[in-house]
């Protein structure tokens, strides 16, 4: 989480004494953040799930994509069963294709988190650039860009994403494109709001007096000071992106069957749910809920601390 404050501190260009403003700000931020047990728990869970996703090939009991290791006789085993020679315990049971549900979850988490992080980073970059440009130049450019943002935000993201994916087809890259399209506007609006406040501050005027070019002022001076509210949006949007991807995959327009994210696993398990084979659907669902709620707990508390000027 060090990214939250580093750029801000870097912008103050203070001396390197041990009691520099950076260190003070950072310490205050850590103290404020740790004041909420729920947020700390959320952060720990988030870091653990990132670790689980990154190291999935090493910690998963089985490679769910390796058809050679699957034995169709082991399909739909309840949690805690073992395979025929007892060498492998299916702690969370197996699904309809005899995949270990735990392994499938770990690999699914990889895809869900990857889609989430990449789409949020791209939306962050695009939205922030648009918002800063709108705020800095104002006038017609601002009016035009903000009209587009308003129009985009007046339509429910699920609907926009659904139509886009119907157009583009299935695939991880296409899901990411759709998620960026529905999310950039939030960043644009927040970046503009923050930059309009910064625009009139003395350091920007000083930079202008030094005849620095506009892009240098914007990216090197204004941007770092707009980061805190954007970080809040990024955190909350990460949860939103993961949930939206799961929803789209559940509806059958998201990731392809060959690269199952958590939403896809839940969708696959749905058909077994009504017959009482609950674990195929239930455990991926729990995993998804834990990740999304953990990120939201972090985001909710970050919003309280950094107190940006934005709506829910």
């Amino acid at each position, binding site marked *: 989480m060090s990214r939250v404050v580093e750029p801000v501190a870097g912008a103050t260009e203070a001396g390197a004494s041990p009691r520099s403003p950076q260190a003070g700000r950072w310490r205050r931020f850590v103290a404020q953040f740790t004041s909420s047990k729920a947020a700390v728990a959320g952060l720990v869970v988030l870091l653990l799930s990132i670790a689980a996703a990154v190291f999935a090939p090493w910690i998963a009991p089985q490679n769910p994509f390796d058809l050679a290791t699957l034995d169709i006789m082991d399909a739909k085993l309840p949690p805690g069963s073992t395979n025929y020679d007892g060498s492998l315990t299916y702690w969370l049971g197996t699904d309809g294709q005899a995949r270990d549900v735990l392994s499938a979850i770990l690999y699914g988490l990889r895809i869900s988190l990857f889609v989430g992080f990449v789409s949020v980073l791209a939306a962050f970059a695009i939205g922030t650039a648009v918002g800063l440009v709108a705020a800095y130049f104002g006038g017609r450019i601002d009016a035009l860009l903000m009209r587009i943002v308003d129009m985009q935000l007046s*339509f429910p993201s*699920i609907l926009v994403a*659904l139509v*886009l994916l119907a157009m583009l087809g299935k695939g991880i890259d296409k899901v990411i494109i759709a998620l960026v399209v529905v999310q950039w506007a939030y960043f644009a609006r927040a970046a503009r709001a923050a930059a309009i406040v910064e625009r009139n501050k003395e350091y920007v005027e000083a930079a202008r007096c030094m005849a620095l070019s506009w892009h240098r002022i914007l990216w090197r001076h204004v941007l770092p000071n707009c980061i805190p509210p954007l970080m809040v949006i990024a955190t909350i949007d990460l949860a939103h992106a993961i949930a939206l991807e799961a929803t789209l995959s559940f509806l059958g327009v998201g990731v392809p069957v060959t690269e199952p994210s958590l939403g896809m696993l839940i969708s696959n398990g749905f058909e077994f*749910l009504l017959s009482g084979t609950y674990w195929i659907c239930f455990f991926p669902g729990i995993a998804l*809920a834990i990740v999304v709620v953990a990120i*939201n707990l972090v985001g909710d508390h970050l919003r309280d601390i950094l107190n940006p000027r934005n709506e829910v």
Partner: protein
Amino acid sequence: MLATIIRRLLQTGLVVLIMSALVFTALYMIGDPVLMMASPEATDLEREAIRRNLGLDRPLWEQYGIFLSKAAQLDFGNSFLTGESAMRLILERMPATLELATLAMFISMAVGIPLGIYAGLLPQSLLSRSIMSGSVLGFSLPNFWVGLMLIMLFAVMLGWLPAGGRGPVEDFGPIQLSLFNVEGLKNLILPALTIATAKCALIIRVTRAATRECLPQDYIKFARAKGLRERRVLGVHLLKNIMIPIVTIGGLEYGQVFAFAVVTETVFSWPGMGKLLIDSIVNLDRPVVVAYLMLTVVFLATLNLVVDIGYTLLDPRVRLGGAA
């Protein structure tokens, strides 16, 4: 005032026009409906005939022009699949979505407003903090997930309620509702709860914020100083003032529920407009998708307009402050 309304009307019209062009071009790029409709053995000549029949051989701008003039008469063409009027198909499904959205919003308001006021009055109490943590759960859990868990609990494990579908309906003039009989309500309650979970969390947050903003105001202090009973202070003076943001958000959310119903209706096989949209997307039934999207565009744009104007009328501060 009139000038503001006219300007907002023009803006709304422009948005609808732009969106119609976007929707039309976007949908034009989805698959080839002729391939879906013609039998696999059809010759190229037969395919060409179908294409001409549907008007798909004309240039895009011409198709758009025809589409616009027909759309103005609420004619979006016939479904490629059933041959019925696309508009009619959607209107037939509308009551189902309408009763679902209405019950869902009713539940979320009935639960959310009291909880929100409580959390606003006593922000430090343990219950308030649990309400707020609970609301994080409410809006972070994806809609379809909540639906699945409800199905698992109430339909599969307990067997109390059906897992999907719509119950028996009764005629109310031209529309049919299942809201007013026990069996119908049993089918309705799980999908409605699914939608209400997310909306309730939002209502709680809005209500709490509004309550906390209202409490330190002079009129509350004055009402208390006058010696009014606490119940009257809260029930009249506070409630009246916090209703403005709640009605605004509630109105906008009511519109959004139509779109969110896409997910919930799919989970519960609820035969509403959202389910129709998903089925039509899968089947490349272009006229139905276009008609649905255009209806949503017009509906949401109108809703935004009404909320905006209503807000100006309701709250004198907005009218005076923003004398546009």
